[in-house]
């Protein structure tokens, strides 16, 4: 999941994103950032995160939890 944090930092144009970082508090968190993130997760982790997920998650660690749970759902199918 280190890659997820690296990409979040890249998308949000900051040096580092920690698990407690609140996504919506960044000035660079907008629909473009959201779409870039959705595209990254789909390409790297092969799962979909939805607009409902993005509305719900507050921190980077909550986002990580969504990605992890989607991956385990995909494996159990």
């Amino acid at each position, binding site marked *: 999941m280190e890659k997820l944090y690296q990409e979040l930092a890249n998308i949000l144009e900051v040096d580092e994103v920690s698990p407690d970082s609140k996504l919506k508090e960044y*000035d*660079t968190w*907008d*629909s*473009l950032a*959201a*779409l*870039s993130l*959705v*595209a990254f997760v*789909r*390409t790297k982790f092969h799962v*979909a*995160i*939805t*607009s409902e997920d*993005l509305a719900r998650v507050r921190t980077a660690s909550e986002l990580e939890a969504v990605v992890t749970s989607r991956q385990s759902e995909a494996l159990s199918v």
Partner: protein
Amino acid sequence: MLAVVPANTRSFVDEMENFNFPRSRSLKLKQVMGYDQHRIVDGEVCSSDLACFGMEHLFKLGLVDRDCIDALIVVTQTPDHFLPPTSSIIHGRLGLKQDLFCLDITQGCAGFVIGLLQSFMMLDQENVRKVILVNVDVLSRKISPHDRNSYPLTGDAASITVIERSEDEATIHANLKTDGTRREALMIPAGGFRMPSTASTAVLEDDGEHNLRAKDHLRMDGTAVFNFVQVDVPPLIEDLLRTAGTCVCDVDSFLFHQPNRFMLEKLADRLNIPYAKMPSNVVEHYGNSSGVTIPVAITHNLRETLLSSSIKACLAGFGVGLTWSSMLLRLGPLNFCDLLEFS
């Protein structure tokens, strides 16, 4: 095939001040999505205006005989009126013969492939020899200029495709899917009978992400549409190619609907299609004109090729509905293939 685009060019950089976002973020959006110029109708221009302009051009050049048209199919989401059908309006304005089948189809981004499917079905009738397929949308008139999600990518356009039976019996493969449970991903909520337009539906509201739009305007759930294109379109194309007994390497050109360069490149990556085989430059030059993007992609990129030779083409449209459809066919040589400016 003829595409018609408004002469009126707008640039993303000029329009950035309408968006409630920092300039640097809008410039990044421009770079990632491939936004640059788009074509927007002036004022009160309607779908039938663009369509009739294109048809008159074809009549004038002698490319179509006004009296030899057996069916007129108009695919649009922006009719001149609720009724009569836009096909009847075009029929009347052009003075076409009475012995002619007029049909409107309400479809968006899959509208070119669906219009072709309907045209082919009509040509199965013995006395239908020539079908005119018009794809046209002036959706910019239903998009808020303060909506950075949708406005920079929109474009208005029309296309006219003349379809006739050919002597050779080449097989055309196609598939089509619909999922109405996701119908709200792309929607204009107000203006129909469910929610008539009133003063309150015209009020601009912040969507929580700094975009201002009214219920009378188009709204798009960008994430849902992205996931749809990435998840549902690749299997559609793979099924089509498998059924046809062919593969990506045997297809000369993948002429897909043009939502934006970003989504098309992700789709190409997923399907292992080389970018050189899949044009993705329509949005940056003209904007996304929903059902008209495939004809614009063809006339802009393949004009010379298709006037002199034929290619094996895979078409795909995907969007509002949600609807997604693809088609594998031999395209060309065409009698005409041009892009015309409406002014």
